[in-house]
């Protein structure tokens, strides 16, 4: 009986095939042909940017998508991670390219890789995932089941089933927030591949599915990481680091009025310092209204650690807006362990009862042990905390070069003396030396020794202004090698509301300075200084510059402690000694 049934079907299909040409000629609606042509055109236009990724030994694999013509391509962390530092990538021109790991985001399940050997790679156009609507057509492309040996991407076509979806972390990582749910078939091997809208714009990176039912094949529910999340992380990803997501330092839950309230808050968190307290109702976050806990987690999950975002809370019918600097979601060692660098922290058991769609498995994955290609092996530098330190060095060089071009004081490594007036009239003299910092302000004198090793909040209530000026001197005199740690972080909006800035981070004896360079003209806007990781910030902004022998030096400096103004210094006289002079 069963056989008859199938024969029946065969017959039907044959009949269909016979009938189809006749119908096609007779009655095809032009709109159908136009829609078909549009699909064909879109697929033709975007297919060259789709990458088939294989481990160095040709084993394992997944998908990816090229986003810059010099070869930067996005994929999943869970695809790149087992593939080794060097990979092989196939494009639909049938060629296989070498590629190197750039950075990883283990929480967001994103990795950035760089294809090598060309500067004119075909790229995907980035869309805006916030405009994606349920019901929109969506193309998933990639290499499911590693079917394509000629690297022609497989295309699956479906609709958007849901937007702004939240998918619980697998363990403590691989959390999909604000993601796009599609019924386009997502199968093993699709991981890391692009999701395009019907205009051929990249709206997401496919990475996950609800697989618990059918043994790890498409079940009609696939999830893509939104491209807007990746845009926030873009410069962080170019830093070569193991990047982290953010935490507020407070937890929220739904109260019986369906309001979202703060139920726990850490006293050392920036949110607490800015005034957020237990029981406050969260009204909006990052400009989006908050109506559910998932919504809050969705928004928090798309921003990098260290970003400053606006948060509106309500207490006693009064609404207050604060700008909160987000802390890191994971400790450095947790991140490194997840990225496969160290194994220190015992694995946290996942919460029971969490339903978590599994990331797509890596077909035939095996740790690659193939040596890197000789030609490219200089493109990988191993360092703790980095996926590939080589790319961080390139970014450091870019910003330091820009600083050097406008403000080169590298021949002035001796003592510095800055004198001038505070905006309200008091005169000051600031003396910067290797042994210590001295600050005379009116009749007061403040000292910070640099030999005892103890950094102080001097003058009191500034967050360590004197120690901050020590970092200032080291950076401006080209002595970055004297920092214990110095790296490029990525980009963020200055103070959460101003222009996008590139960020360099300098650390010495636990004190941290973050240096802000305008993203478009690379001018230095100022820096934030923290005596320790959880201290309140001493925010220093350069408002005016003066020119000394053709080199720019700050002449007006605004100092804030947290969000409270402390002082404004006008520098009138600058004496910068060379190392030899100082020794005399």
């Amino acid at each position: 009986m069963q056989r008859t049934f199938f024969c029946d079907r065969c017959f039907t299909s044959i009949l269909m095939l016979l009938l189809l040409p006749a119908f096609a000629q007779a009655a095809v609606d032009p709109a159908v042909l136009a829609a078909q042509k549009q699909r064909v055109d879109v697929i033709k236009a975007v297919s060259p940017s789709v990458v088939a990724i294989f481990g160095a030994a040709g084993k394992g694999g997944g998908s990816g998508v090229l986003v810059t013509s010099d070869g930067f391509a996005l994929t999943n962390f869970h695809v790149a991670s087992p593939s080794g530092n060097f990979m092989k990538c196939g494009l639909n021109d049938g060629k296989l390219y070498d590629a190197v790991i750039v950075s990883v985001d283990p929480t967001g399940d994103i990795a950035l890789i760089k294809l090598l050997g060309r500067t004119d790679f075909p790229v995907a156009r980035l869309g805006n995932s916030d405009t994606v609507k349920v019901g929109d057509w969506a193309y998933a492309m990639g290499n499911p089941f590693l079917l394509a040996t000629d690297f022609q991407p497989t295309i699956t076509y479906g609709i958007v089933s849901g937007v702004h979806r939240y998918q619980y972390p697998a363990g403590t990582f691989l959390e999909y927030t604000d993601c796009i749910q599609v019924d386009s078939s997502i199968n093993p091997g699709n991981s890391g591949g692009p999701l395009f809208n019907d205009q051929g714009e990249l709206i997401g990176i496919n990475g996950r599915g609800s697989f618990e039912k059918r043994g790890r094949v498409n079940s009609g529910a696939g999830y893509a990481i939104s491209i807007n999340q990746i845009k926030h992380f873009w410069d962080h990803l170019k830093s070569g680091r193991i990047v982290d997501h953010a935490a507020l330092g407070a937890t929220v839950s739904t109260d019986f009025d369906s309001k979202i309230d703060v139920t726990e808050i850490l006293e050392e968190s920036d949110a607490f310092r800015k005034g957020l307290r237990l029981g406050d109702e969260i009204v909006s976050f990052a400009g989006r209204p908050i109506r559910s806990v998932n919504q809050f987690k969705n928004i928090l999950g798309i921003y990098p650690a260290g970003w400053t975002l606006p948060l509106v809370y309500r207490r006693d019918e009064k609404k207050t807006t604060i700008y909160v600097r987000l802390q890191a979601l994971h400790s450095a060692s947790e991140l490194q362990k997840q990225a496969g660098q160290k194994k220190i922290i015992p694995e946290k058991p996942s919460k029971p009862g969490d339903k978590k769609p599994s990331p797509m498995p890596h077909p035939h994955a095996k740790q690659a042990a193939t040596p890197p290609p000789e030609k490219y092996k200089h493109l990988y530098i191993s360092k703790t905390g980095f996926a590939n330190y080589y790319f961080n060095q390139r970014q450091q060089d870019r910003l330091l070069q820009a600083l050097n071009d406008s403000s080169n004081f590298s021949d002035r490594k001796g003592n510095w003396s800055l004198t001038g007036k505070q905006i309200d009239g008091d005169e000051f003299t600031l003396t910067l030396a290797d042994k210590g910092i001295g600050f005379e302000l009116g009749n007061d004198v403040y000292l910070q020794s640099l030999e005892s090793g103890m950094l102080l909040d001097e003058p009191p209530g500034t967050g360590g202004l004197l120690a901050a000026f020590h970092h200032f001197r080291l950076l401006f005199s080209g002595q970055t090698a004297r920092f214990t740690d110095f790296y490029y972080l990525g980009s963020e909006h200055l103070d959460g509301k101003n222009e996008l800035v590139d960020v360099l981070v300098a650390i010495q004896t636990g004190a941290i300075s973050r240096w802000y360079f305008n993203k478009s003209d690379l001018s230095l806007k100022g820096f934030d200084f923290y005596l320790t990781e959880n201290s309140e910030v001493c925010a220093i902004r350069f408002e005016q510059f003066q020119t000394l022998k053709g080199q720019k030096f700050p002449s007006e400096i605004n100092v804030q402690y947290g969000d409270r103004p402390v002082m404004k210094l006008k520098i009138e006289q600058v004496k910068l000694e060379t190392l030899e002079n100082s020794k005399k």
Partner: protein
Amino acid sequence: MKENTVKSAFVCLCLITSALTVPVSAQASSQATIQHALPRLVKIFGAGGVKNLYGYSTGFLVSPQGHIATIWSPVLDTDRLSVVLHDGRRFEAEVLGAEPHLDLAIIKLKSEHELKLPYFDYQNKAIAGAGTRILGFSNMFRVATGDEPVSVLHGVIEARTELPRRRGAFELSYTGDVYVVDAITNNPGAAGGAILTYDGKLLGMIGKQVRNAKTNTWVNYSLPIDVLSKSIEQIITGKYESSENQKKPETETPERYRPVDFGLVMVPDVLYRTPAFIDSVLPGSLVAKAGLRPDDLVVFVNDELIKSCKTLKSELGKLESGDQLRLVVRRDNQLISLELQVPPENK
């Protein structure tokens, strides 16, 4: 066989023609349909949550007062049935009635105020043939919580047909017509959702997760609204008579004893094949003395395999006064057997 072929050819012609007459503004109208449908779908949370018994399902509003059509499933077997609307409003709900034969249940939101909710007109009995494009709405995998809308899938009706249950392939009590679709609607929590045409006509209710016992494949099917419509109306208006009650007594087998005559209270028989778990044991009863406990699963009665509460009932019914009753139950993966004397019949 011949007639069959002709029928398939006809189906296939329909398929071609309907595929060719896809409206120009297919997407525009599907967007409108999605916006129309999502506020009419609800997320249902009830009993379950262990192993393959999911504690959630989907339903759709069929009246402005909060009547909801959904799948008749163990999810509803609780006093704390909770329904979340598309806007995040959460209600308690009660089961108003069910037509187990159609896998249909109607639940109603408990509310002190008059509700004026958007709803589907189930009496507009739209019918569609193979090739019709559909949208499926369900909270599969419980992706949506709170004020998030349920998931939307797209697909095509492959056939309106009887599932070949008569061949013993699908474990289903319902034997009438269903829509078989190519959207993957057969997922945890999807049952009770709705399928609609692209232009917004309610076609049916997504069926429960069944699979072909022979090929181990899942089938994506929905129960047609034209079949459900009458029962929905009867349950809402309170004029309902279950088709189960109308059925003549299923067996000629005697029913001399019921489980309760031995002190057994079984779990509610809500499934086509409800496993014969003991819900509670009457204190001081025969089985209590013999050491049976709640949650024991009855596996054998006098060497007859007990597949469900129904077979237990019929096996016990056959007993006669003075018989030896040999019971084998499973408790925490251990088989425990015991024997007791059948008491005199209680007339």
